[in-house]
């Protein structure tokens, strides 16, 4: 129980960073998504259900405080948390979160998250295709780069491979 409270507080801190700091490090209007890193981390540590739940809660909070489009981030992050849960393995928890494997999983899940997020725009043709591609790829790469920070922090012996 205590661990989940810790996760929740960490999530809230990351959300605060996402609101206040992340827009300041935007490159060509591309911003990283700290919440997806957190969702993937929870999913790899605690499994699919926890990852899905973390995805839903963090997405909902993002909807309420960042996008003001209720439900869209909640949906994409829930799907992302669910997909991240497939990489969960009790025997490989450390390997998944403390090596470069984490980077790969974050990039893949971030791509899924962004694709679901922009799915309505893709189907409705409401945004320029090149613009959507730029946003999806840009956000995914930027998020992937930032996901190296927790890898370096948590890696006990800096065994990155």
């Amino acid at each position, binding site marked *: 129980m205590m661990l989940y409270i810790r996760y929740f507080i960490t999530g809230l801190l990351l959300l*605060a960073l996402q609101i206040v700091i992340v827009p300041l490090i935007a490159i060509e209007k591309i*911003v990283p998504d700290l919440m997806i890193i957190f969702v993937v981390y929870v999913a790899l540590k605690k499994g699919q259900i926890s990852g899905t739940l973390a995805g839903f809660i963090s997405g909902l909070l993002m909807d*309420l405080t*960042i996008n*003001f489009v209720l439900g869209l981030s909640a949906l994409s992050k829930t799907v992302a948390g669910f997909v991240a849960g497939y990489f969960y393995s009790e025997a490989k928890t450390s390997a998944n979160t403390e090596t470069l494997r984490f980077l790969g999983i974050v990039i893949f899940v971030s791509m899924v998250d962004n694709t679901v997020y922009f799915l309505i725009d893709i189907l409705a043709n409401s945004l*320029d295709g090149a613009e959507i591609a730029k946003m999806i790829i840009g956000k995914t790469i930027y998020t992937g780069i930032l996901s190296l920070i927790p890898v370096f922090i948590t890696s006990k012996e800096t065994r990155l491979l």
Partner: protein
Amino acid sequence: MLLFSGNSSKSYLVARIAVELIGFAKHITGFLPNFYDLKAENKELRKTNVLLLSELNQLREEKLENIRLRKLLGFKEKQNNYEFIPADVVGKTLVSPYNYIVLNAGENDGVEVNMPVVCELGVVGKIMKTGKNYSLAMILFHKDFRASVKIQRSRVDGILGWEGGDFLSLMNVSKTMDVEVGDVVITSEYSTIFPSGFEIGVVAEIDNSVPGLFKAIKVKPSVDFTKLEEVFIIKYKGDFEREEIEQASLENKNLK
């Protein structure tokens, strides 16, 4: 389910709390610069400063000329049935498909949802959410923004929206219509949200080679959102009588 529950009293209360929290947070951290853009912005501002100084002298001359011509023609001032609420931009998001600005004026100042937001350069957007002391306004670079506009020179009507990128899109303009690069785009009388005649941007690109009946027109907004600091919220009372007539006409059509 959440996507369609935006009008319940609970979600309205949560949204109000969120607006207050975001407004306060952005207000507190508003002084932090974007390091990536700071150098380029500084250079750009100095260049703009020089340009504005020369433009100022020209505008003073033109203002005097304008006063003389108005007197000469007995030009009747348009009656505006609205007042302005000044507000500072205390936060902004320019990095998502749902871009908005946070304003330090809210319900206590008389701000309501759908009120137009303008600055001295032109239309900024419209209010989308309100708190007691803060409000959120969707800017022109918001996926859901739409405005009824016209070309000032040729009076051609169209719908303005944003499809990503640095330009707005002027939609529903037939290929036979008279539109040129450099034409000023203004809000039209058809809009029930914006008062007519406010500048919104300038035509930057026209493409007639696209398939279909309409031109692809890119419009550069008059407002530079990266430098936007002060705005006015217009206490604009839409023409409700006209709306009622239009609504009644629609209902009659549906009955037939």
